[in-house]
């Protein structure tokens, strides 16, 4: 089962995604939660708390900064840059924008 959750800002995408991921994990599935928002908040809805969510490593930035010597597989990215969330959910943040970039 591979699901993408979409909608307008503020409708509850992240809350639905996080709660759905936890519920599926509680029913025994192995769940990978992918936060593809460059303003990543899924950690909060998964129950990681705001501080831990703020400190999650984003895969894209980590790769750009040369954290890995070789081009990793998708599984390698999940393994290396993912974080454990409650109920065994594995969370990967794809990318984040923190500072101003040239126009």
């Amino acid at each position, binding site marked *: 089962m591979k699901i993408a959750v979409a909608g*307008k*800002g*503020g*409708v509850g995408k*992240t809350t639905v995604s996080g709660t759905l991921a936890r519920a599926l994990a509680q029913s025994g599935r192995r769940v990978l939660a992918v936060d593809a*928002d*460059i*303003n990543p*908040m899924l950690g*909060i809805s998964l129950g990681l708390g*705001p501080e831990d*969510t*703020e400190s999650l490593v984003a895969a894209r930035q980590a790769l750009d900064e040369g954290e890995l010597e070789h081009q990793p597989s998708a599984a390698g990215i999940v393994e290396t840059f993912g974080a454990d969330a409650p109920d065994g959910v594995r969370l990967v943040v794809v990318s984040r*924008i*923190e*500072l*101003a*970039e*040239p*126009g």
Partner: protein
Amino acid sequence: MWLAVAGKGGAGKSVVAGTLARILARDGARVLALDSDMMPGLALTLGAEEPPLPPLLEAAEQDESGRWRLKRGIGPVRAIARFSTDAPDGVRLLQCGKLTAAGRAPIMGAFHAYYGIIHRLTRAKTLRSWTIVGDLPAGQRQLAFDWAPYAETVVLVVEPTWKSALTARRAARIARSRNVEILTIASQTRSRDDARLVERLVGEPVVVAVPHDEAVARAEREGAALIDRAPRSPAVRAIERLADELRARSLGPG
């Protein structure tokens, strides 16, 4: 007074931007309202007719290598005169373009034309006396990629939630790195404590609290502008206080 309104999705950016633009225009300012969301919503909160699809396409041309740019010879003043549309109280609305059923390609020209226009606004002497209110899409992406170069002030709209506050912090960091003034407002507050919570979570002083207001929900449900549907509602009153604060600042020292 040139501002951009930013914040998390659903915080109330478009309601604040649209209502504020109308209030400032009623008070005599010439107001340009900018909507740089490819799924635009500002026309609704301004109480304007939805502009045709996408007007700025005519302002775009492709260079020799096929890259889109603002047509040579179209300056910001002409672009605004030709491609902005009417909103009530004399507000002019300019949209960057919108996603259509035809997909991505038709609007790329419009985006590049819009980007060209907003980067030339400061050069136009006749616009200096105008007020600009920009409504940015959710999150901090456009601030990071310089889609609000006109903004002297970024108005951060923040609900009393962690997600909204973290978005505001990220947006504030970017605004500060661009030397843009930050003005934080709490939105959808249900008590005085909520405004204090926003201050604590964001780490910025809250200038105005726009209370949770059923009138906003009713207007949104009907697709009507809040300022037309409920002109005396607590939310409109709060945005009037925001307008007062902005006017006081733009007249003040510095």
